[in-house]
């Protein structure tokens, strides 16, 4: 039965690798300026992981195939090189891989998190609440009105808890259920949670960031292709979690201006 184990395991290993090698399942097209670094890192890791995976599984399969249930009296032998060889191999192969991936990966991470947004970045506030996203644009004055959690009234469309009666800066704020942004323009998203933890995930943007209640975070990105993309919540937030979505609408600058004007008139 050792031979059978070897054969079955080899088949499993090859079949497991097949969809990866043929790119049957892969990430969608990248529409961000930083995403290529993440994709490269992913495919480098995939190459190294794939070789390790196939190497280890096939070796295991081969050894079990060859060395199981041998004839009585078969003399057992040890691998030349012994444990020292294995330890050295682990340090050299995996150690290099760890260092290389670790060091290279830092750059991709730094692109997202250590490079501050440019002063020209467009500021948009995103608020996550059970079970919807809302987005707020500062309006012509360029300033966001203050948030008053006690004034939140979803029935009347006051999702953020603004107080336009007493707060001048809030009067021209534009609130939208979809995130429209101009193409090729850096956007800084100011993330605010109304209730529990949520997350902002757009596959095509290669962005995922949690909303943390009580902690206002910011992320920035530039979209390079127009189109509509799904924003989904990826932090378990309650019974409607599976349905917590919004759209990212990447528009040409011209269309974006029109959209914003239209939205402003609806407020």
């Amino acid at each position, binding site marked *: *039965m*050792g031979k059978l*184990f070897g054969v*079955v*395991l080899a088949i*499993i290993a090859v079949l497991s690798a097949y*969809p990866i090698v043929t790119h049957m*399942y*892969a*990430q*969608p097209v990248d529409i961000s300026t930083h995403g290529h670094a*993440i994709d490269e*890192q992913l495919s480098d890791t995939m190459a190294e*992981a794939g070789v390790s*995976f196939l190497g*280890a599984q096939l070796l295991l399969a081969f050894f*079990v195939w060859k*060395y199981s249930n041998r004839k009585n009296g*078969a003399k*057992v*032998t*040890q*691998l030349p090189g*012994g*444990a020292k060889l*294995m*330890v050295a*191999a*682990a*340090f050299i192969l*995996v150690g290099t*891989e760890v260092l290389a*991936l670790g060091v290279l*990966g830092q*750059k991709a*991470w730094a692109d*997202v998190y250590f490079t501050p947004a440019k002063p020209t970045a467009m500021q948009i506030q995103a608020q996550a609440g*059970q079970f919807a996203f809302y987005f707020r644009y500062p309006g012509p004055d360029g300033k966001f009105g203050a948030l008053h959690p*006690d004034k939140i009234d*979803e029935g009347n469309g006051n999702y953020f808890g603004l107080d336009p009666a007493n707060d001048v800066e809030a009067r021209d704020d534009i609130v939208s259920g979809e995130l429209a942004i101009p193409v090729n323009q850096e956007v800084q998203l100011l993330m605010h949670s109304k*209730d529990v*933890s949520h*997350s902002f*995930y757009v*596959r095509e943007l290669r962005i*995922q*960031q949690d909303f*943390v*209640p*009580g*902690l206002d975070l910011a992320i920035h990105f530039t979209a390079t292709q127009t189109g509509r993309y*799904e924003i*989904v919540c*990826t932090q*378990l937030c*309650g*019974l409607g*979690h*599976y349905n917590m*979505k919004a759209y990212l609408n990447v528009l040409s600058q011209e269309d974006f201006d029109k959209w914003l004007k239209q939205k402003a008139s609806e407020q």
Partner: protein
Amino acid sequence: MQEHSAQVAHVHAPPEGFLRKFVFSLDHKVIGKQYYGLGLVAVFLGMVLSWLMRFHLVWPAARVPGLELFSKVGAPGGVITPEYYLSLMTMHGTLMVFFVLTNAPFAGFGNYFLPIQIGTEDMAFPRFNMMSFWITFVAFLILITSFFIPDGPPISGWTAYAPLSAVGNDAGPGLGWGQSLWDISIAVFCIGQLLGSLNFIATTLDLRAKGMTLMRMPMSTWAWFITACIGLMAFAVLLPACLLLILDKIAGTSFFIPSGLVVGDKLQPHAGGSPLLWQHMFWFFGHPEVYIAILPAMGIVSHVLITNMRKPMLSAKVIIYSMMSIGFLSWLVWGHHMFVSGMNPFSSLLFSFPTLTITIPATIITLIWVGSLYGANIQINSASLFALGFVSMFVSGGISGFFLAQPSIDIYLHATYFVVGHFHMVMGVAAIFAIFSGTYFWFPKMTGRMMNETLGKLHFWFSLVGTYCIFMPFHYLGLVGNVRRYSSFVDDFMAPLMPVHKFITIAAFITGAGQFIFLFNLIYSRFKGKQAPENPWNATSLEWSIPSPPPWDNFGGKHPVVYHDPYQYGVKGSKGDYVMQDSPEAIAEE
């Protein structure tokens, strides 16, 4: 340690009466079986929950006949609601992680075999030992109670992230009493584990037989010992975390809840807390927990493999040192669960490095297993098949960890099915394969009867092929960006992936059904199995030097003396190609 072996008095009297023998037993062997039994109940319950989840994912509107009798609110007319899906998911995770993966390989087998493998009569603190099981049992009952309260179990996942888990019913169903029961259950569970860990450590350090130096302990004992050290620190942090969470919920404190939250249209009366504090405390336990599950598994598999290879490992010492370094590094990596949580992005890089580094000792262990097979005379039986399956599963699940250890890639893969595939393979399936391996290996010792090998092998093939069919596609889904913890995939980018989900669901049903072969084999062999000899596998460690099943005081009032390292295989001994640890005969160098 030799001086301890001189004591002749028994640690406790022979058990008398039904209660002392089978229920409130002080005997580590009975307690080990109790833990194992609890794990068995939990694993089948957890598996049924996963069936319901997989069923709901692909046929969300279909009826599960009879489920409405179990939960009127969660499954009206037998159709699972989205929130009940989350309840099932929370309970599946909690049962599997706490009551299966912690209980069976560590507390179950560890209790039974650690004292025997070091040549002692019982644990250092038999009463504590009995308490730790019964405390764990109470924790299990408290958790299960949540199924029977009107609101049902919590919907916050096994990670119970605050503030969702901390603000009560306002945040959704199951977050009131259901969540409180979860919190209390886990806090109680921690107490049981802390007592158990203390017991393991004291026993290993103080009660070894004459000649049983630390380096002469079998690898399984080493693994249980290291795990106990990890458990002592991990559960000591989860316990206060749970207490603080309970206080937030019922006493109005704000450890994990900041000000200004409007949940369920209500402004919450809390201020000053931090949701990230819960995540840090939870994962400070949560990551070592992965090793609490997998280190005993490694120990068991090493022990089974080496016996069935009929020759020494390339180096048992290197495996032990690697397990120690994994244990140590396990404290430095918890932040890799939090790369996109909003913690300082610089800490992500700091957590990434030890996470990548931990693959080095893990690779060393794997290479030693695989390299040791070279030139071996592998005995194929159910136990060794599952041990070899473990190695394969550990490699598959471990390698996907490479991706998730890198913060940049994690931006894309975090919270997708890639993560689900990764931890199910490396922590879930691998550890369960080790439990199976240990069961087929030690069952003869524990019951005095052999398990049926044909059924065992059949069970193995179902499990190996089945689990690959279930969990490999999870990785593919994750690469496309399929988000986890969603109760359905409607009208979104995930909908086209439904055929893959269907395949997984069908595979899960078949693989799960295959597990009943094991259950049948276990029960059938317990009563009708062939009589087991003292040492059916021609093994060398002390558990094989005593009758099957062992007498209540293990060594029949005698004190074993140990003369050799634990794995003297491939040598010329009086009994064959091995020399037992307690055999005074000299080992002829070949």
